């Protein structure tokens, strides 16, 4: 088989496996796959900012939280479903991203200080939502849960499979969007900025404008992850929604899979879930329940990857599978 045929066959097999998974798997498998896809999607969104444009955000939980609270607030207080709520979420998160990006890039805050600025805004939002009683405050905001036997697409309610297909669609869409952008002008400009911002500027690239585009696109994409999170989880707490731990979790997938690669966020998310939740499940089978083991496994994985595979899991895996290593 030629390399092209093999790629096609492999992609087809993966696509079919993903499509029939809820039909053959049990609820646990579907929930684990949903989690992996959620991390893959959010990671893809984060990757636009850091992987493509080289701007390290450690505060992406801000956009997950804002998106989740925006859509959940509309649903709880006005009965407006997620199809309208997602636009509000995207609008709010784009504005927040644009605001932070504008401040940072106009005042030339970069590197560590940019990362700290993103953390600080996420923390400020956490404290702010703790005091926002209209959205539940520290006690949490709960979405009314209805019977889950039938699919109600309008209110985005249904059996676990509904959420699985929704996040699968989102992940595929994000992958297609990123693949498209990488081959067009934004992709080349972003990578030029990532590798050497001064050189990019010297070539006439309006670096401020393209960095802003990366931040706004990344935050808008993450907003949709927040909406999904709200309607999948049905409960929101500022302590969790805006936590530093969530920002780290979003970042782990692309870092482990391969920064700036298209398939890195997906491979990384799968590795995180397989090893993290796999270990937890294995221990649970033997009757041991250790809180923290999942994250500890994530930490060890991150440590090993940063030391031994600085480009992530995907580039070597791509070579083995016959894909072009897309380290762009």
């Amino acid at each position, binding site marked *: 088989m030629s390399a092209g045929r093999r790629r096609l066959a492999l992609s087809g097999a993966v696509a079919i496996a993903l499509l029939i998974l809820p039909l053959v798997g049990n609820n646990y498998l579907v929930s684990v796959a949903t989690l992996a896809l959620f991390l893959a999607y959010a990671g893809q969104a984060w990757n636009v900012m*850091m992987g493509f444009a080289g701007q*390290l955000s450690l505060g992406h939980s801000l956009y997950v939280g804002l998106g989740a609270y925006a859509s959940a607030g509309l649903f709880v207080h006005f009965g407006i479903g997620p199809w309208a709520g997602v636009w509000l979420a995207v609008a709010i998160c784009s504005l927040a991203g644009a605001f932070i990006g504008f*401040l940072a890039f106009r*005042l030339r*805050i970069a*590197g*560590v*200080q940019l*990362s*700290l*600025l993103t*953390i*600080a*805004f996420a*923390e*400020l939002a956490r*404290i702010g939502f*703790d*005091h926002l009683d209209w959205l539940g405050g520290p006690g949490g905001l709960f979405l009314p849960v209805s019977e889950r036997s039938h699919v109600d697409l309008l209110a985005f309610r249904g059996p676990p499979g509904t959420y699985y297909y929704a996040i699968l669609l989102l992940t595929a869409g994000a992958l297609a969007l990123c693949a498209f952008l990488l081959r067009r002008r934004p992709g080349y400009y972003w990578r030029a900025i990532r590798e050497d911002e001064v050189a990019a500027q010297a070539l006439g690239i309006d670096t401020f404008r393209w960095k802003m585009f990366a931040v706004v696109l990344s935050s808008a994409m993450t907003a949709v992850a927040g909406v999904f999170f709200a309607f999948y989880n049905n409960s929101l707490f500022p302590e969790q929604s805006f936590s*530093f*731990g969530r920002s*780290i979790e979003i970042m782990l997938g692309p*870092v482990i899979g391969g920064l700036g690669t298209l398939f890195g966020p997906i491979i990384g998310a799968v590795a995180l879930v397989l090893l993290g939740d796999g270990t937890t499940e294995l221990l649970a089978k033997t009757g041991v329940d*250790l*809180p*923290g*083991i999942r*994250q*500890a496994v*994530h*930490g*060890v994985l*991150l*440590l090993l990857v*940063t*030391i031994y595979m*600085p480009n992530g899991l995907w580039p070597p895996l791509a070579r083995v599978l016959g894909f072009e290593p897309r380290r762009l």
Partner: protein
Amino acid sequence: MPALPYVANAVISGILTGTVYGLMALGLSAIFGVIRLVNFAHGELMTLAMYAAAAAFQGLALDPFVTMILAAVAFGALGYVLQRGFINRFIGRTEHAQMLLMIAFAIIIGNVLLLGFGPDARNVPTSYQLDSFELGPLLIDKVRAYAALAAVVATALLAAFFRLTLTGKAIRACADNPVGARVAGLPVGHLYAVTFALGAGSVAVAGCAMVQLIDVTPGLGPAYTLLAFVIVIVGGLGSMVGALLGGLVIGVSEALAGLLIAPSAKSMVSFGLLVLLLLVRPQGLMGASRR
């Protein structure tokens, strides 16, 4: 507006806590100033020291002020090994690669603590925990005063080391010009490891002091990492005097915000200050101007 003695008490309490904050941030600042390493595991090291003090008190009935000395030595050794074994390989790699390495350590330490000690809060109920000194209308907690005193002593020792010893001078030479230091034949890898050891040692002392002021949980790490960064940014990255000053500023503003606004406004004030400073004066109060 609360009566004046309350405000005065809050300010004094803030200064004393701020001294401990300052020592914690000093470790971060030294590590950044010399190795140019952004230590995202700083808060986790602090939490680890707090647990060490709590465990030593519970198991061996050791006073945290005794544990402090042992912990400083143990953390120094740990820091030396971490720097020599792992972090030195990352010198010359990109800034974010170094940050990711430290984040990996942070995740591991935080969750190993959760695995080992469980999620419940721990404290160190010493016999003098609730005592206080009375100075007229002022009330000063004994533990807070002792903690601040220990922090001052540790800071003074650290400053003396950097100013007076040959190794300290060599480390400052590395900070000024790593390439020049290498050319002059200084063992840069070893000196970096000594610096990280000193940073970890000061965090150990700060942790043993802090565990008497606040209960410890495994998830405390990120908050302290951020707090240390806020302090160091306020004072100016890499400036040791700045770290101490930043600690005092944050300590007092937290205490005043807790008294005048609401206890939960404490961290709001420090993060707000961080944003403001990053935007207005990113080099910090004491840092040299970059432009």
